[in-house]
Structures are given as C-alpha cells and as structure tokens.
C-alpha cells in the first residue's frame, strides 16, 4: 500500500513484471517504497496532464513523453531513454521454423487467407513500429489487408497463442515467456524508428526519493532484471 511520500510511478503496462522486481529490490535495499500504476501510456500521460500526483513517468512511446514535455509537465533535465526493445515476428506453436524477412520471405504468402496479429498500426507503438518495419521491408502493401489489429500487444499475442492468427508482430519482451508461440524472425533495429521507453520526473513531483529511484532504474541491478524480461537497457542517455 502507498503512503503520501512514497514514490508514485506511472508506467506503461508492459513493464509490469520487470518494474515490479526492480521496485521490490530497490525498496528492500533502501527501505523506501515505490508504488507503480500501470496503464496505457496515453491514459497515464493524460492523467499527468490533469494533475495526477505521479512522480515519475515511464512511457512506452516517445510521442507521449514529447507531448508532456512540450506542455512542461515533466522535468526535461531528468528525461532519459530508459529501455529499448526489439520487434519480432512470432508464429503459433512451439517449434515453428525461422524465416528470413530481409531475404524476401513472402509473409503475405505464408498468411494465405489468415491474419497477421498486430497492435493498432496507427496508434499503438508496437503497431506503428511493426508497420514501419514491414514497410521498410516492402511487405506492408501485401499484408496490410490481412492485419488484425488489437488494442495492445498482449491481445495480439493472445491471438497467436490461441491459434486464431498464425503470425503476429510483438515485442521481444512479450514473446519471452509465452511457450505456445515461437519467434520466427527478429526485425532489424534499422527497419523502424528505435523502440524507446523514455522516463522522466514529472514537473509536480514532490517525493524526494523519485530521483533516486530513477537513477536506480538505470543502474546495473535493474538492467539485469529488465534484460531478463527481454528489454534492452539503454544506460540512460537523456535526449534533452
């Protein structure tokens, strides 16, 4: 349970497992406590805009952090790119083989009359990245009619894991723990704008520990935990 001077973190929901571990570990080490509210980045950003008492915001999309920054609701000097992630193509089943998209594997052909599960390609980050990646591979036009878009990556994963869709595009971090799907291709980091989870203190942050926790997030212990969940720690390069 949370106290008034606890650190209250607003974080993208996909970070839950790793961030919970980091928070517990940090809390145990420092005797301080952190409370994390997980929701979609858009919700969290809007809440901060409306005066939410959050100290720290970790977004799954650069756009929402930019949005808050331009509204002067975060402290730009504390903003860092906390994590990166990579995008993978998954298939239903444990041991699906690998395909090579760069070499021109025909995704549309593989799909046949079935669906490719992705997050919303115009609005949810994973979907936007996925569309960009497919576009850069020249495959988008062929598959765009076959895309089943979900409101978040996890739902896309569910479609593949239940077999409704044979293939899907999700974050590597999502594919990690799911044993009913297998990763059949990894999209090159260059095929889309970098997948970045920025973090920053909010302008209204009042908890003195918030900055300490932000620092801990980019520390080595945290990095291990994030890595274990499929994220790529970025060692805190602020982009101002």
């Amino acid at each position, binding site marked *: 349970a949370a106290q008034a001077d606890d650190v209250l973190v607003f974080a993208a929901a996909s970070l839950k497992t790793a961030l919970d571990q980091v928070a517990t570990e940090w809390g145990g080490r420092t005797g301080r406590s952190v409370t994390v509210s997980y929701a979609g980045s*858009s919700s969290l950003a809007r809440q901060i805009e409306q005066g939410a008492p959050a100290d720290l915001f970790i977004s799954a999309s650069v756009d929402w952090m930019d949005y808050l920054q331009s509204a002067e609701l975060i402290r730009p000097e504390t903003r860092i790119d906390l994590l990166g992630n990579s995008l993978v193509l998954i298939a239903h089943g444990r041991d699906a083989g690998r395909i090579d998209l760069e070499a021109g594997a025909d995704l549309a052909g593989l799909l046949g009359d079935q*669906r490719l599960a992705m997050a919303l390609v115009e609005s949810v980050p994973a979907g936007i990245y996925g569309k960009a990646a497919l576009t850069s591979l020249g495959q988008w036009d062929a598959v765009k009619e076959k895309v089943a878009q979900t409101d978040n990556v996890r*739902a896309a994963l569910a479609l593949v894991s239940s077999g409704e869709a044979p293939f899907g595009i999700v974050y590597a971090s999502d594919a990690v723990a799911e044993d009913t799907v297998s990763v059949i291709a990894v999209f090159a980091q260059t095929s889309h704008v970098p997948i970045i989870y920025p973090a920053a203190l909010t302008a209204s942050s009042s908890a003195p520990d918030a900055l300490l926790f932000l620092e801990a997030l980019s520390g080595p212990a945290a990095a291990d935990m994030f890595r274990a969940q499929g994220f790529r720690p970025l060692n805190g390069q602020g982009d101002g």
Partner: protein
Amino acid sequence: MADWLTPDQWSAVLLSLKVSFWATVLSLPAGVAVAYALARHEFWGKQALNGLVHLPLILPPVVTGYLLLLTFGRRGAIGGFLEESFGLVFAFRWTGAALAAAVMAFPLMVRAIRLAIEAVDPKLEQAAATLGASPLWIFATVTLPLILPGVIAGAILAFAKAMGEFGATITFVSNIPGQTQTLPSAVYSFLQVPGGDGQALQLVLIAVAIALLALFLSEWLGRAVARRIAGS
C-alpha cells in the same frame, strides 16, 4: 457527412450500426426466452443460468473477449463446430463483433425483460388459459404484448451497450478496418496518439447521436405501447 469523415471512419460508423442492430435483433428472442424462464419457472440449474447470463457484466470485458476467443474462435470448441457444420465463422468477422456485442449486452436485456415479465399479473394469463389458450399462445397473445414496453427498453439498452462495446470486441475479433473496426475501436485508436482527441470527439458525437436517437425512439415507442394498454 462523408466529407468530414474519412472512408475508414465512415465505414466504422456503418459497421457499428450493423453490428449493434444484428446483435440486438438476434439476441432478442433468446433474451425473452431466458427472461421468461428466469421469471416464471423453477428448474434445475436456474441459478447457474442466471449467473452465466450475468457473467459478461461481472467480468472485465477483456476477459470476456478472451473467453469468446477460446470458445468461438476457429480453434475453439464451439467455433470449430459451427464452422464445420454451418460454415459460420466468427473470428475476425463482423459476425464476431456482433456476437461479442450481443454477449456483453445480454445481461442488460434479460434484466429489463425479466422485470417486465414479473410485473405481468399471472391472473391474466390464467384467464387466457381458461379460454383455451395453450401456454405458448398465452405467451404470444397476453404476456408478450403486455411486456412490450419492457422488451423495447431491454432491446434499446442492449443496442446502446452494443454501440459502446469495445473491450470484448477488440479482444475477440481485433480491429480490421472495414470488417471489425467498430466506432469504439476507432475512437480508441485516436485516443492512443497525442492530438487525436479531436477526431475521437467527432466519432464519439456520432455514436452518442445514434444511441440517443435510438433511445428517444424507444421512449416514444414504449409510451405509445403503454398508452395503448392503458386504453385511452
């Protein structure tokens, strides 16, 4: 209208109307039957049925959507059967969106109709029986006309709910523009990107306008029926 809506938005509006309409119309007979059974009969498993009917109200929509996926998906027990036997496919089709909307709206519909049935004086049904009407006829000629305002209320409630349904729908049939992208899905998309509020608002207003229209229509219909019954 088509001017200030993109084709995708436009098709989302039409699809939502189609989905909600069919979800309401097709679930109405089942709603009436279940409401009648719950209101007037005692049977084994009654409370189980009652619980089942209310489940979509209780469960987070995502969970309902996921359960639908597991049962009515192509690989699901029922979904597979229906596809093989009748060629009826729900997954990634507007039919699936209608199914999700119907399931989500069902508890509301049943509740409204059930209350109406419970308000019918069984003495009138008895009177019909003495005149030779079998239970089915009694239902058709006495009970049903008397509960019509309740049925209309239930149907419109369901329609409104169906127009607003999002979580279960997108989880079950995802969001395929032109096929399963309903109004709420489109609204959700816009809300996910900074600056999309304006377009979201536009769509929301359309949804509200449609649902309110339906609501007023039902009020008017319900009152007309009630007045007919009151006999003036």
